[in-house]
């Protein structure tokens, strides 16, 4: 959220309505583990979730 325009896009999210079908579709599209590659450099991973 580094730019004023990003702030507007983020706050707009509070006005978006999602149906149960929408949520189910997102749930199916983004299950845990679907992303490839660690979220931090590998050497840094041990310092997370400790």
């Amino acid at each position, binding site marked *: 959220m580094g730019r004023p325009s990003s702030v507007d896009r983020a706050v707009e*999210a509070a006005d978006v309505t999602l149906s149960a079908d929408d949520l189910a579709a997102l749930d199916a599209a983004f299950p845990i583990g679907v992303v490839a590659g660690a*979220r931090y450099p590998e050497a840094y991973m041990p310092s997370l979730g400790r």
Partner: protein
Amino acid sequence: MTGTDDRMTEAHMETRTLGDGTPVGAIALGAMAFAGFYAGGDDEEGVRAIHRALDLGVTLLDTAEAYGQGRSEGLVGRAVRDRRDRAVIATKASRGGPAYLREAIDRSLGHLGLDHVDLYYLHRVDPEVPIEETMGAMADLVAAGKVRAVGLSEAGPDTIRRAHAVHPVAALQTEYSLFHRDPERDLLPVTRELGIAYVAYSPLSRGLLTGRIRGEDDLDAGDWRRQVPRFQGANLAHNVALLAPLEEMARAKGVSTATLALASFRWWAWAVRRAWTGRSRRPT
């Protein structure tokens, strides 16, 4: 959404409550990018972004001493100087232990130009110091009036419980997005059980969920994300391909991919709560 300041009043945004009872806007502003982790960072633009956020009902401003060795804290402090009462200021200590924390809070307050912060996080659990000792030191900072409430960042469930037994943990902050839903397994349940507010960071997966990063060349040479495996080579190509259903749904709703990715959280939280209680009210 331009030119709608009058309509988008502070009353417009839903609020959440930190563990100590402090109300905050449901969407917070993270100030890490202002320190140039992703691109150069522009202080004037950062101040304008903070002012815009406060005008739209954001109240929780989240920084850390580690973000540019005080640069981000300094920018946040400057931005709120004439509107301190509208902001809930959170910053973070890089390490634990009484001696470190006593000095770190004074440095952070100096960068911010404030006499207290509303929320002080342990940025990473310090393997050198038992969490009980660090929380005891945090409680001393609360007693001294320098800190209103204490939080943990990237802590595991056992640490959270041990910490909470020494001094109330008002907030837990960890990464959480459509691209990192692991907190649903073990962190969301423990925060709910203990009455701890949950704060998601990198809710757009450091920009991946905006759909605007399609390849490594979209990142500047000095961009920290180039060191992160999920932004590299075949991993990145795989992850960008995952965005298709999100982008399609965003188009159908007439909103940006980023907006939809963020919106999904609020509804997700509702779905998770419903699964736990069986009777939570739908978000309004």
